[in-house]
């Protein structure tokens, strides 16, 4: 069921107090693809993504990055290969977009070597890719929700990693901004070959943008595979308890869920 990949969860269990959130989770994030994790509320989507990025300590099992347990590896070395944008990140007041993006270079720097030519280039590239170059000197507070999310993504991009994880990057964005952001994420995946995995709430957007979908139910992987295989009427009924029809999107051909 799980193909070998650079980033994998092996029998991972996580519980908060007595509530078990992940239950022997076994899954992998396919290299070079755009993966979307879906599932009902409390199915463990965010916990899985956070565990994969070593932000969440795991009880049992292991997260494997490049063949070794992620928790046994130096955090800085992990940060040069894997970037994650957590849900609703916070920054101190008065921070400018460029300063934020520059922080993304942290794993490539040290207290004595705080800036290099490679740092400057990576920051400019990240600002360009996210379309934030002309906003680089604004403080985060004055940005709109969509722009702020782009600034944070630019920070994660400046980290210059092969793997990029995004925890619900479209929360609080209106539909046009959601589409714009997902297009950006897909172009990052297509243009640079980055492995991307994210949590999304909207099944139809997930079906349209993902190469690979991981559907969770009760802290386990219920189905994983290409959208057409995972997003079916039967699966939606089981995972979300949602009677529905699934048709092919007339424009993009991806599966489209229409709740009954």
């Amino acid at each position, binding site marked *: 069921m799980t193909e070998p990949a650079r980033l994998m969860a092996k029998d991972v269990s996580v519980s908060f107090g007595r509530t078990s959130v992940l239950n022997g989770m076994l899954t992998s994030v396919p290299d070079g693809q755009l993966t979307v994790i879906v599932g009902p509320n409390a199915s463990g989507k965010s916990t899985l993504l956070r565990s994969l990025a070593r932000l969440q300590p795991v009880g049992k099992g292991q997260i494997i990055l490049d063949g070794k347990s992620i928790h046994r590896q130096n955090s800085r070395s992990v940060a040069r290969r894997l970037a994650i944008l957590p849900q609703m990140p916070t*920054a101190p007041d008065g921070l400018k977009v460029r300063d934020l993006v520059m922080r993304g270079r942290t*794993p490539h720097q040290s207290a004595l070597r705080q800036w290099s030519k490679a740092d400057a280039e990576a920051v400019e590239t990240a600002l360009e890719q996210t379309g934030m170059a002309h906003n680089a000197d604004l403080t985060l507070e004055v940005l709109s929700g969509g722009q702020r999310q782009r600034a944070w993504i630019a920070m994660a991009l400046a980290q210059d990693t092969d793997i990029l994880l995004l925890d619900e990057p479209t929360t609080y964005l209106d539909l046009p901004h959601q589409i714009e952001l997902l297009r950006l994420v897909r172009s990052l995946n297509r243009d640079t070959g980055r492995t991307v995995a994210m949590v999304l709430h909207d099944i139809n957007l997930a079906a349209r943008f993902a190469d690979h979908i991981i559907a969770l139910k009760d802290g386990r992987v219920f189905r994983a595979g290409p959208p057409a295989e995972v997003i079916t009427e039967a699966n939606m009924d089981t995972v979300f308890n949602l009677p529905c029809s699934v048709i092919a999107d007339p424009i993009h051909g991806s599966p489209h869920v229409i709740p009954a």
Partner: protein
Amino acid sequence: MILRLSVLSLLLSKRAVAVGFGLSGLLALALLAAIMLGAYPMSSTQVLDSIRGQADAVARMIVIEHRLPRILTAIGAGAALGMAGAMFQTMLRNPLASPDVIGFTAGASCGALLAMILTGGMVLAGALVGGLSAAALVTLLAWKDGLHPYRLILTGIGISLTLTAGADLLMTKLDALTAAEMAKWLVGSLNTRSWGDVTLIWLGLLVLTPVALWLQFPLRRLAMADDVATALGIALTPARLAIAVTAIALVALAISVSGPLPFVAFVSGPIARRLVKGGAPALLSAAMIGALVTLLADMAARSIPMVQLPAGVFTAIIGAPVLMWLLLVQFRKGTL
């Protein structure tokens, strides 16, 4: 702005550099004024002459034996407190989380007091042990699935009050004369400082300032959020431990020469942040503001004739309104 020295490349904001120069100028002016003013006013030439050893014996004694040690101790202690305050406030992402609010300073004073009662000396060691124990106790009591700043602050305020009461209790073990002396010390006093105090605080600063500046690198990242700092590859626990121990050492050092000057650690960081902007921890600016506040408070204390008022009275007069204002701002923003 990038500062390069062979393999070293440091990132500095132009504003931070400008603020640094401005504060240094102010501090130099305050220093000169502090030497000149007093019960025996002096001209700037008299001051220079006495430092060069060319003035009469009285002027020399006043400058070299009385005013300079007191002033240099004030600057050193203020700088140490200001830097320590900014470190904790940045690390815990809350201006209320300064060592004098959350009990670490009270712990250090208790430790110093206990050391004085038991051994008659060992003030620095006592302050260090007291400060670290208070920090460990507060952290332990506030810990529940990680460390939430507001819980740490409330626990710290409780511990702070308890330790202050503990210090009062310890005082009853002393004879009246020593107790009166200690009471003054507990308010934070710079009366009758010696060159020994000056040497202690400045040697300590010489060692700890580079460490603090080095820790500014993880500190900047910790200012964002635990998740973001981890994502960027900062190992949280070692970084926090190093920052806390360094900051507590600075507090202990300051306390052992000047007593727990209230609110100096607390006001310096927020003022520095507002001057420097850009969300930087600005440790050097905070240190200079701490020095300036302490020096000005001590000058105010000296300016009142006949009574020997401790400088701590005046740092409290400056600090208390700032505390109220920050509480109000945070309450309105809903971040308390």
